[in-house]
């Protein structure tokens, strides 16, 4: 374990004061002179051909400045998998067809919102309704209606993985079981509704302020759909009120704001209503997962065969990546000598599903973990013992994927068992007795190695400008969306340069200022990837100022140098020190006034196909279930997890606490109520996410590891924690009631139905 000065210490967030005082500016807070307000017309039908759109009445309404439909646009499709243009299936505004209720058909910009809203009602659209499909089975049936002409099967992407001898694995197994699991859609439900403001600069460039997780991706896709060059678009990310995977693609309103700003010469703002967010917003993929596993009598896994259908909704969105990742998540956590995966992403006439915190893992690992719990029961082995027997360990190789360099899984299992008194409680609570305790585990990626976006830049970049007053300016495209990466990368830089937090100024996520590029805030990639880029830049600065100290004190070349406490000195002769500012001044002088600037980059190389580093953890839930009502009350959570070096303890705790809120909602209360393709619950009143009263207490332990690929030993702590809660609660509910949930969410009705027949 390395000793740190700033990393691992309680450092308040960079932006906390601005947010506490209400001075932090979010996109919808921006007002520009002459700004127009935009609204979007959405399809009322799940599947229909557009026969005619008449916007003349809307355009004639006083105060309306611009009305557009798909026909007015360059008609260029987009999608995040640029490497496979076939998968780019979405137009900013519908062309010829609509494919879900809420699909975007036209947009209006007017002098105020009321006028824009009124104009929407004046747009006439004539549709020819088409047969629609709302579930995977109907979508892949013979003769099913086809959503996209390029894809007659409605299966837009599939992925296969196979290694080891699966037939032999099952033949040699003493115990084989197959289960089918279904999991439902939930909303990201970030508190800040999506918002974008665009302005055409005097020289024709477009500036877009937008609530996004991926400024660079938005810049690229906006440029292509506008038929402009990347450098003609400037994307600025103001403060963002949460994303969780729901703000990581180009979105219609970003395009419309930019396109209409260009057309009218006036700034244009779009802000979605909460109703629109729920009605048409992205969501977590519903899936059907069939998993077959084999074990030896002693609990040793012999193999796994996993088949998944993802209900993708009307467009690919981030579904292809989720399909890909589900395959990998299926083989994480445990040692599977043989493994086969087949995943298919299916179009249905519903709002598109996309990335959401965990990116396929909450679904895939719910199946893994629930099946592990079933197997433990049937093999007569304690669930934690069974896991310990099969757990991955440091140095394990997942075939075709990666070598796990650090793994604190076993330690997490042992720790969590101790924290919650696992053995005693398992013995004390009788199955069906109303009280129960259950476990769920996770492993997650620290950023992806894959590059379907086909970026031509490094995955992460940072620029450090050093000043002779002893301060530095850090520029990075890493997108802080509330998780706190601005603070984390500042801590890493302060540590590396031996400076204080207040010596560092940061500019982040402005594509015209911050160095190219960064793939954005998703896949839990920022701490590892941007952190490494920051260290790279800092080391380049150090190289230069070390030379200055060497010359100044006429040092022997063998000396190792160090930056610490605002000073630069040879480690062995700390008395020969200069301040950081003096060293910078000298370097600048040596370069005839040229400012001291360095850029750092990180792209994972030779790290397999999936991720450079894996996090691990185990969580136990204790529940009480009311036998009369079937209501589940979670009494407590215990979590032990391995995220490598903890850079910011409060940020990591905050990630866990927030993840539990989301996991609890996913398991027990949150769901979309759908009538065919229509989302019926479009308010927070009807979409029930846990509030402060619903949250049980929770206890956490951190398992120490030092990840060699991570910055100062760190790996991910954002998404993995969103995974174990559902299987842990489901296992505890089984212990308490005898009801084994294989179809989320767990509702009182399901429990009562099951326990009645027991």
């Amino acid at each position, binding site marked *: 374990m390395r000793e740190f000065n700033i990393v691992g210490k309680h450092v*308040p*967030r960079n*932006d*906390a*004061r*601005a*947010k*506490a*005082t*209400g*001075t*932090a*500016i*979010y996109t*919808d*807070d921006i*007002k520009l002179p002459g700004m127009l307000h935009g609204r979007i017309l959405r399809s009322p039908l799940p599947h229909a051909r557009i026969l005619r759109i008449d916007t003349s009445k809307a355009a004639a309404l006083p105060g309306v400045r611009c009305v557009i439909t798909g026909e007015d646009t360059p008609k260029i499709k987009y999608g995040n998998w640029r490497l496979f243009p076939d998968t780019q299936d979405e137009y900013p505004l519908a062309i010829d067809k609509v494919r879900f209720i809420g699909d975007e058909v036209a947009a209006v910009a007017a002098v105020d919102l009321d006028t824009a809203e009124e104009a929407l009602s004046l747009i006439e659209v004539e549709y020819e309704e088409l047969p629609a499909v709302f579930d995977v089975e109907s979508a892949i049936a013979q003769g099913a209606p086809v959503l996209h002409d390029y894809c007659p099967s409605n299966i837009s992407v599939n992925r296969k993985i196979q290694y080891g001898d699966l037939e032999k694995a099952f033949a040699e197994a003493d115990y084989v079981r197959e289960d089918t699991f279904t999991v439902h859609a939930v909303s*990201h*439900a*970030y*508190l*800040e*509704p999506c918002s974008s403001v665009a302005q055409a600069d005097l020289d024709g460039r477009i500036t877009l302020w937008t609530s996004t997780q991926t400024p660079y991706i938005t810049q690229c896709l906006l440029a292509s759909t506008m038929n402009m060059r990347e450098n003609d678009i400037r994307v600025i990310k103001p*403060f*963002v*009120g*949460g994303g*969780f995977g729901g703000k990581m693609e180009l979105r219609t309103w970003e395009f419309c704001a930019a396109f209409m700003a260009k057309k009218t010469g006036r700034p244009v703002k779009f802000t979605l*209503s*909460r109703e629109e967010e729920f009605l048409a917003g992205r969501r977590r993929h519903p899936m059907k997962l069939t998993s077959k596993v084999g074990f030896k009598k002693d609990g040793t896994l012999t193999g796994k065969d996993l088949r998944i259908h993802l209900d993708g909704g009307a467009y690919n969105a981030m579904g292809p990546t989720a399909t890909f990742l589900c395959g990998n998540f299926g083989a994480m956590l445990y040692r599977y000598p043989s493994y086969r995966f087949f995943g298919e992403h299916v179009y249905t006439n519903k709002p598109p599903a996309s990335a959401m915190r965990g990116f396929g893992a909450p679904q895939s690992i719910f199946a893994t973990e629930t099946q592990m719990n079933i197997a433990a029961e049937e093999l007569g082995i304690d669930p934690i013992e069974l896991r310990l027997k099969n757990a991955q360990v440091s140095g394990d190789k997942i075939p075709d994927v990666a070598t796990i360099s650090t793994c604190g899984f076993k330690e997490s299992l042992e720790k969590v068992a101790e924290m919650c008194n696992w053995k005693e409680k398992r013995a004390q609570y009788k199955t069906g007795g109303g009280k129960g305790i259950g476990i769920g585990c996770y492993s997650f990626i620290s950023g992806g190695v894959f590059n379907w976006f086909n970026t031509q830049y490094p995955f992460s970049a940072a620029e450090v400008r050093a000043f002779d007053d002893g301060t530095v300016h850090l520029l990075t495209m890493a997108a802080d*969306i*509330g*998780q*706190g990466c601005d603070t984390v990368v500042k801590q890493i830089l302060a540590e590396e340069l031996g400076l204080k937090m207040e010596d560092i100024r940061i500019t982040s996520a402005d594509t015209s200022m911050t160095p190219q590029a960064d793939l954005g805030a998703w896949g839990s990639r920022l701490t590892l990837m941007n952190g490494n880029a920051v260290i790279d830049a800092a080391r380049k600065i150090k190289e230069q100022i070390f030379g200055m100290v060497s010359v100044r004190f006429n040092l022997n070349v063998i000396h190792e140098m160090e930056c610490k406490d605002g000073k630069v000195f040879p480690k062995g002769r700390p008395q020969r020190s200069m301040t950081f500012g003096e060293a910078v001044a000298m370097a600048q002088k040596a370069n005839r006034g040229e400012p001291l600037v360095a850029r750092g980059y990180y792209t994972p190389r030779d790290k397999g196909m999936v991720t450079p580093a894996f996090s691990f953890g185990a969580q136990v839930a204790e529940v009480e279930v009311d036998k009369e009502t079937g209501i589940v009350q979670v009494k407590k959570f215990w979590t032990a997890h391995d995220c490598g070096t903890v850079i910011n303890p*409060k*940020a990591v*705790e*905050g990630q*866990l*606490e*927030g*993840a*539990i*809120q*989301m996991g609890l909602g996913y398991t027990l209360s949150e769901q979309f109520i759908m009538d065919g393709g229509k989302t019926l619950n479009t*308010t*927070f*009143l009807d979409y029930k*996410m846990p*509030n*402060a*009263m619903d*949250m049980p207490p*929770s206890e956490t332990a951190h398992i120490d590891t030092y990840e060699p690929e991570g910055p100062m030993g760190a790996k991910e702590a954002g998404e993995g924690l969103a995974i174990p809660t559902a299987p842990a609660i489901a296992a505890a509910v089984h212990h308490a009631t005898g009801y084994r949930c294989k179809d989320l969410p767990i509702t009182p009705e399901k429990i009562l139905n099951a326990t009645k027949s027991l």
Partner: protein
Amino acid sequence: MKHVITLNVNGDPYTVSVDPSQTLNEVLREELNLTGVKLGCGSGDCGACTVLMDGRAVSSCLTLAVEAEGKDILTVEGLAPSGEKLHVIQEEFIDKGAIQCGFCTAGMEMSALHLLNKNPSPTETEIREALSGNLCRCTGYAKIVEAISSAAQRMNDASERNQ
């Protein structure tokens, strides 16, 4: 038909003309540029828009502007009037790590202030009850509850010292 209303916001008097259907939230954000007041749902369900009206916590998205006629309104911008020294609640939110994306923060702080004005020594359950109309998707509420309880303590200590 516009109505002319006068209201007092964060100690300053304002006169604005409003539509009968206009909400207090629109007046604060759009007319007075007090954008610290957020809009998360517009239907009274998330609490991001919470302000104090004559000392009572209200959802500004559900309150009509005309109802604010003659009232004293306190928004997050008025919590630390000097702009330099923060309110204890704000300091504790910062120190305890109760802020992530920050979109719920202003509403949370105003609900906290309302609670502590009524009940200077709330129990954890009372704090959670007082926050039940304020949703947060980032923090799981734990650090928010912690911040409020420690703010209560500090405010009590300070008032004891003053006596």
